[in-house]
């Protein structure tokens, strides 16, 4: 291969590398073009500030869905953060090599299970459990159930990034603390966790973005009633399940309103993604 040809490689690869940005731009463009007009027609504040969603009567307000998504995200974080960070601390600080080779692939495999299967297992086990033992207006199809199902679902995201963050803490920090006579647990809570907190926070935010974008697992266990969440045992509808449920038959303004729901979803996840970057300063990269 000649040197002239070799010079052509770089610009070609640059063009390929820019494809992701271009794709992101086009995706955003199409969702906005299709969704924004109806938002403006209804009134942006009315669209995101009203709880009246009666698409067949031309009433489009998605506040209940926004609140539903946020409630599910909050509930999931309550379940997944202590659990995920705990797993990460164990894997990074306490576990023997053999335990790591057993637990880490298992946690990663949790991410490979399709979200429909999570929904299915949730319907089979967690829904009846919540219905029988806790009751509530949702008959088991509720925020609490969704939080548990999604808590397991996002566990690998939080564990993966937290382990990376913990491992990126220089060993000398730990050595310094241990040399002062601190126990391993004291070192972890007072030194390592503090040094790794921005990375862990990034993992939590990314996990939250994942939860808000999750569709199939949540649609099967949340009940999908369009009401403002009042208790963890209420059935609600999330932004994602609103789109997935009604897209099949929606026409005209109704379909456009679903795209507008997509716009809100797109904006929320972009904000969370930008926040992740802001928190870490740069992308969390695995320690070599």
């Amino acid at each position, binding site marked *: 291969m000649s040197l002239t040809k070799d010079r052509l490689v770089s610009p070609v690869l640059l063009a390929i590398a820019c494809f992701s940005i271009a794709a992101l731009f086009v995706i955003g463009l199409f969702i906005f073009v299709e969704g924004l007009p109806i938002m403006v027609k209804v009134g942006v504040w009315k669209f995101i500030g009203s709880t009246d969603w009666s698409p067949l009567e031309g009433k489009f307000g998605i506040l209940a869905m926004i609140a539903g998504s946020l409630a599910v995200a909050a509930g999931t974080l309550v379940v997944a953060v202590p659990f995920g960070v705990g797993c990460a601390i164990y894997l990074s600080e306490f576990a023997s090599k053999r335990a790591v080779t057993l637990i880490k692939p298992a946690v990663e*495999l949790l991410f490979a299970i399709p979200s429909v*299967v999570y929904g299915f297992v949730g319907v089979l086990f967690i829904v009846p459990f919540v219905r029988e033992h806790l009751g509530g207006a949702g008959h088991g199809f509720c925020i609490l159930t969704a939080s548990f199902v999604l808590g397991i679902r996002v566990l690998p995201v939080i564990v993966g990034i937290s382990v990376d963050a913990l491992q990126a803490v220089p060993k000398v920090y730990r050595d310094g603390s241990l040399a002062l006579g601190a*126990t391993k647990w004291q070192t972890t809570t007072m030194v390592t966790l503090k040094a790794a907190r921005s990375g862990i926070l990034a993992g939590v935010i990314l996990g939250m973005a994942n939860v808000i974008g999750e569709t199939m697992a949540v649609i099967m266990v949340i009940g999908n009633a369009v009401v403002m969440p009042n208790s963890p045992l209420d059935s609600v509808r999330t932004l994602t399940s609103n789109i997935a449920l009604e897209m099949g038959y929606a026409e005209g303004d109704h379909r456009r309103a679903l795209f507008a729901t997509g716009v809100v979803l797109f904006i929320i996840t972009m904000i969370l993604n930008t926040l992740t970057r802001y928190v870490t300063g740069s992308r969390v990269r695995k320690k070599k």
Partner: protein
Amino acid sequence: MRRLNPKKAELIAKGVLLLFAGTAVLALVAIVGYVVVKGIGVINLEFLFGRPRSMGREGGILPFIISSIYLTAISLLVSIPLGLGSAIYLTEYTTEGWVTKAIRFGVDCLAGVPSIVLGLFGFMFFVKLLNFSWSILSGSLTVSLMILPFIIRSSEEAIRAVPQSYREVAFATGGTKWQCVTRVVLPCALPGIMTGIVLAIGKCVGETASVIFTAGTSLRIPGSIFDSGRTLAIHFYLLVRETGASDMAYGSAATLLISILIVNFFAYWLMRRFIARVS
């Protein structure tokens, strides 16, 4: 208040953390174990290679398996060249600067787009605007956008793990940059890159939200990429919605899970080989 003895505190903490980690493993074993045990009895040759009857509530799942394979293959065909090209550019052809920062930000954001939003986009762009209709092609292109960031990241990491001295040797023998990349770096990074690709296969197979509005739900075997097809994951979702936990649903779920497990174990095997090679 009497303070807890630090040694005792450590012991309690260790126990609690082990409990957390154990629960995670248990959750995996419980989910996979339950679905596979309930479904394995349904799986036989007639189930795997038969045609569906009465809207897929009875009979076999062959069309859905074929649709899934079709969709996965075309998604990979689109996203591997793009992903690998991006990864090579980011690692070999540039230095860190605002361009790489912008590209990485774009990749991260693309990874963050919820799959249902990708589905909306795919519906508007591929199904309606480009007039591909509900087809394997529309579904594949939508899914390829979903797995692209994943392939870029994993390839980038694999390429970065190739020791610098390998490249120096290639240059010292008079190779051009492209020769160095194609003949030294990529072959060495291949198992690592393959691991990412294999994991992406698992994601394609299990994807539902973005496929349901782009690939359609036809029960027939897709004759070409312009035909609509129902993937196994979508079939499972529709079955559960219509019939609840039927034998067919368990069988489909078990087939889905077993194929994903096989794919993942293959990925781990590849990863092991890769780690042994670069270290």
